[in-house]
């Protein structure tokens, strides 16, 4: 019998991920590994990890990685890529990392058209620290630092990073995907592959925003978190290609 779906070499064979049940961080990390393996570039890849749950990735993945200061992943990736252009360098960042504390680094790297790939995990909440308000938290959605939920007058509105970066001239590729169904998971896989291919082709900044879940801090079991993701998150963050100059 032929194995038609195998565990990727991009994650360690003997390790169970540290992520909560149903958390799509695990899914995306798996997809990245599958893409790197398929493209046969795993041995030249460096992952730049953001702070927060992203850090759980370092023990789970099998290849080179560096943990960046909170929010600085795009700057760290810039340093690696510019000084070592032969490496494939991608950042793996959550919404707090990419869109809040690291906003300057994210926008500036995109504006320079830095030849890196960004995998941006948007689950609308701070996961590792315990469910605080994120720049991407939905209106009305409760957070441990917004007990009455996000209020526009007080907290402003959810940030749409694909659309914000789409105001810039330099970025090559911006797509928003999800992993809420097998079909969308395969689309995410394809988007990640495209982002990496763009980098190999020297086309500059690519970002895949993956709208995901946080069952633990949303206070929902994994299957209920899928419903919330489908009904609420994807209404605020519609999926699709925002820009494709690849």
């Amino acid at each position, binding site marked *: 019998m032929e194995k038609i779906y195998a565990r990727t*070499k*991009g994650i*360690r064979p003997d390790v169970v991920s540290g992520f909560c049940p149903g958390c799509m961080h695990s899914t995306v990390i798996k997809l990245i590994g599958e893409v790197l393996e398929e493209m046969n570039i*795993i*041995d*030249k*890849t*460096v992952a*730049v990890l953001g702070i927060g749950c992203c850090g759980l990735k*370092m*023990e789970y993945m*099998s*290849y*080179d*990685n*560096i*943990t*960046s*200061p909170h929010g*600085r992943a795009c*700057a*760290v*990736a*810039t*340093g*690696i*890529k*510019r*000084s*070592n252009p*032969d*490496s*494939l360098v991608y950042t793996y960042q959550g919404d707090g990392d990419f869109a809040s504390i690291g906003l*300057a*680094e994210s926008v*500036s790297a995109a504006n320079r058209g830095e030849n890196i790939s960004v995998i941006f995990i948007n689950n609308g909440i701070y996961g590792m620290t315990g469910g605080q308000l994120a720049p991407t938290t939905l209106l009305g959605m409760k957070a441990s630092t917004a007990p009455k939920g996000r209020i526009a007058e007080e907290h402003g509105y959810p940030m749409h990073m694909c659309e914000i970066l789409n105001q810039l001239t330099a970025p090559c590729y911006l797509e928003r995907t999800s992993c809420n169904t097998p079909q969308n998971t395969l689309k995410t896989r394809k988007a990640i592959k495209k982002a990496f291919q763009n980098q190999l082709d020297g086309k500059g900044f690519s970002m895949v925003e993956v709208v995901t879940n946080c069952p633990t801090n949303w206070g929902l079991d994994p299957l209920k978190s899928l419903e919330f993701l489908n009904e609420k998150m994807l209404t605020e963050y519609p999926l699709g290609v925002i820009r494709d100059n690849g």
Partner: protein
Amino acid sequence: MKRVFMKGCEAIAEAAVRAGCRFFAGYPITPQNEIPEYFSRRLPEVGGVFIQGESEVASISMVYGAASAGTRSMTSSSSPGISLKSEGISYCAAARIPMVYANISRGGPGVGSIQPAQMDYMQATKASGNGGFKMMVLAPSTVQEAVDMTFAAFDYADRDRNPVLILCDGVIGTMMEPVVLPEMKSDEEVAAIKNSKKWAAIGHKVDYANRGWIQPGNWSTAIMQQGNEEAAVMYENWQKNDVQVEHYQVEDAELVMVAYGISARIAKTVVDKYRADGKKVGLIRPITVYPFPYKAIENLNYNQVKAILDVEMSIPAQMLEDVSLAVKGRCPIETCLCSGGNLMKKEQVMDAVAKLI
């Protein structure tokens, strides 16, 4: 040896390039702008990379990345900018990433003044970021010394896998002096240094044990403690092996000044003036302010030395605490201080010495 006339900041940048530095990221701040400006012209000539980061915070993170990929890398800033870089400096120290940075320090605290000062001593030597890490801190008192120290700093950084700080006041950074530059490392030498860093994160064959894994922290407290213990041993070894200090007319001195950087140079002039009058005045100049030359001060003959004069461009005095630790109450310690961007005047030091002899 060919001598060239160079500004301190530019000489530091050229020395770095000659030491094999091939990556610089920085952000404008006075009085160190000539360093990034020089690198922006020079690095492309040697196949290096210059980036003006969007902030100090981003710049140090870029250097953290480039150095983690094995490239000899540098950043620079001035006092408030160094505070911003403290995040990335701490990451480099935690992950044991070799990197060199220069603080062309100015008056503080806060945004302070753009004129020269020595007000970052504590920050440089005691706590340049969270977590209690240490770095070798070299304090030049001439442009030539700034050149030699910068060149050597990259070797120290690589030897220890640790950041090294050139603590340079704004005077040394902005004045011009004749210097002899070190010989340029060849492309082959630069490549060999980079290739020797097997730990670098540039991509490896899939192999968990031998992957390039840059860890500025760890989930395991046991691993964290082990790393901190190893670093502590390294710091102790610096104290044994790497202290640099200049003794100037100390042997028979009854009054010993302690000063570093530009203050030491002014103090030296004062020593000469008093020696011309037969007065027994000397100077101890810490060249490494970390590791601090405690022994040089500790081992003075306190039957002979009547007083110590701590000369610093900082109010309150900062190095004074290290000097006190070494003197151990065996003689009075007086201070001669200025601050906020005011330069130490020779006359001020003369007067301070006159009160003590």
